[in-house]
């Protein structure tokens, strides 16, 4: 959790995707589907008053970057 661009508390989801899921022709549909599924389950705005933001990366991208926050 962290403040967002307007200074309000927000929850930031990091979503690790298979390389196949990041195929460019499917990227929009895939990320929309994941985001709305998580929002339906967690419902952060209604339950906790938190704005939710999503970032994505592929397994290959993370393997190259090895960012601890994504492990």
């Amino acid at each position, binding site marked *: 959790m962290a403040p*967002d*661009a*307007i200074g309000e508390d*927000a929850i930031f989801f990091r979503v690790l*995707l298979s390389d196949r899921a*990041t195929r*460019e022709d499917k*990227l*929009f549909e*895939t*990320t*929309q589907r994941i985001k709305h599924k998580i929002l339906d389950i967690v419902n952060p*705005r209604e339950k906790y008053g938190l*704005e939710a*933001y*999503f*970032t*994505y*990366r*592929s397994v290959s*991208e993370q393997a190259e*970057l090895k*960012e601890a926050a994504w492990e």
Partner: protein
Amino acid sequence: MKLHEGLLEQAQHLVRREPRRPRQVSLRRAISTAYYALFHLLVSEAILNWKRAQDRDDLARMFEHTNMRTACAHKRDELNAEFKRIQETAPPTHDLTVKRHLHLVAETFVEMHQWRENADYDYSTTWVRSDVAALVATVEAAFKAWKSIRKEDAAQAFLFTLFQKKRR
């Protein structure tokens, strides 16, 4: 080519500019440019409603990013509440299709407003191509959604809310 169309095209170019090892600067500029594409799309549409054409450029300067973001978040939440009331099995109506398109536009603006801030000012974020490509693709989809509803009453009413001051 209109400003917003040029900006979207530039964002699409930047995200693909270095396909193997994308430079952070290209990815950051792609995000920022995609946000501004959507910002200028909505502002350019909103000012068309001002009858005196010679005043429209000045009117465009009066739109504020944070106010627009707040108005979009309100619209998104209002539509979410409405979608929840509707049975998932309910047959799609024209009205519902318009609202789903409008929801995408509003939701995308809220998200891009955040990511533009990060892309332009936050040194700690390392961007990856798939993430940025997804953001640019979402703005592309928002453009298409807007084009399909721009003359609808709900879309025109939404444009007016973008001009209003904060309502939190």
